[in-house]
């Protein structure tokens, strides 16, 4: 299946749900959907486009919104599903019911961007330490690292 055929099929199958389909390079397809249609779109990709393999999930801080990219890969093409959620209420549905292998990427997304993944089976932190202060999300653009002052126990203050 060539890229053009895949795009035609995607437009036909998804109809108005596909907000934007682009093909910037050979075997690279970017598809934009509403956050509400995400799980349906992912299910369709898995069942009809041989995209059971989720390579990863990338988050992106765009100022007012978060962009989330789900990078799928089939032998024919690399299909990237893009969706945007507002920073004020960063809620996104979990796709682990469709793709069980997505769990670690969704947990990483919660740690790094402070997104809330609804219906995630295991919401524990994955990469941040246990004593990480709440409300610190390192990959947000407005987060800056400040080294805490060193305290020597029993030493001079």
């Amino acid at each position: 299946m060539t890229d053009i055929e895949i795009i035609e099929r995607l437009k036909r199958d998804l109809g108005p749900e596909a907000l934007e389909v682009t093909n910037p390079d050979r075997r690279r397809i970017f598809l934009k959907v509403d956050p509400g249609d995400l799980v349906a779109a992912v299910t369709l990709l898995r069942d009809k486009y041989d995209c059971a393999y989720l390579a990863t999930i990338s988050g992106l801080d765009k100022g007012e919104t978060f962009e989330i990219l789900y990078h799928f890969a089939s032998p024919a093409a690399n299909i990237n599903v893009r969706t945007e959620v507002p920073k004020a209420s960063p809620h996104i549905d979990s796709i682990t019911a469709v793709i069980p292998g997505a769990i670690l990427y969704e947990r990483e997304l919660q740690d790094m961007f402070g997104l809330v993944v609804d219906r995630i089976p295991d919401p524990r932190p994955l990469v941040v330490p246990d004593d990480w202060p709440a409300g610190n999300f390192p990959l947000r653009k407005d987060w800056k690292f400040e080294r805490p002052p060193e305290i020597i126990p029993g030493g001079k203050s």
Partner: protein
Amino acid sequence: MKFQIPIGPQHPALKEPISLRMTVEGEVIQDADIRLGYNHRGLEKLAEEKTWIQNIYLTERICGICSHSHATCFVQGAEKLMEIVPPKRGLYIRYLVSELERVHSHLLWLGVAGHEAGFDSFFMYTWRDREIVMDLLELISGNRVHYAMNTLGGVRRDIDEGQKAKILEGVAALRKRSEYYFHIGANEPSFVARIAGVGLLTKEQAVSLCAVGPTARASGITRDVRKDDPCAVYDEMDFEVGTADSCDVLGRVVVRVKELLESYKIIEQILHKLSPGDIVVKAPRKAKPNEVVSRYEAPRGENMHYIKSNGTDKPERLKVRAPTLANYPATVAMLKSGFIADIPLIFAAIDPCICCAERTVSLVNARNGEETTVRLSDLRRRAIEQHKNAPPKRNAVWPF
């Protein structure tokens, strides 16, 4: 009675800090839980503050074994963003180093697998032969670990006729050795019996848990970025994707030996196609606002970088997905309903020596702390009773 056994984050047998919490019943693992983050370096955040050139050296330091993989994956993407095409000779040299790196990584892994299975001569043989390819890499780049061959628009060092002859000589020697390992594996019953049927991962599990690389290929999935999404020179090469259907550690050994032999083929083809010319083109300092998904087949599986540029000399976002992260959910599935003795083999880097600590004749009842001394024959009878329902271990079948 269920016990939880923590392994790590710091453990004498662990090469890297990771925490595994095993829930065991008897010697059978019921559940495994993985906690990451003990070595998180905040590299994605750091990359946003570095220039394109600095980021090549940063990404090269993500891994100490497949250092070239991450740098190549990043450079591939950055070149797309800058709209430059490296000259053919530069590309050939870049992917020649990639294949040499795959050879050294797979030889290293084979040695570790042999060591964990208790076959230490195999470990010593493969690591001795690995020196051949390490010397070749040093000959080409001047370094054994961080080759620093990549730059935007090509590679930094050319290779001459003398080096070419040395590489061909080294590859011929390595091929002979690898075929010998093939022979040893097929005719060494104790090695095969130890690794066959251990760490089962069915094809359905591998698909649903998004496994990558030799782990997925050993479960019968033909997924290789070099074939599916050939970047640069791979579409000119004649090679096959090595797979196995046994879905266990034996299959993973087989896949890696097959890949070694395919890599030698690719190296020879690259050297024969190498034509004179430039090795690098000049790259611009900035990249136009755009985004790119760069995929690369590292020795452990698919490596993926998502890079977004914003018109400056620094990337807006660099997302790195290393193959090991993709294989963790599959590892948990492999560990489940395995034996404690198989943890080191399945996890390859872990040697927890739990069995040594659990030799006892004085039993303490965990519920009320009551201590009873039992006879050995009685203990044996209890053990047989306890392990009646243990998962059956498959008989060894060598897949050739």
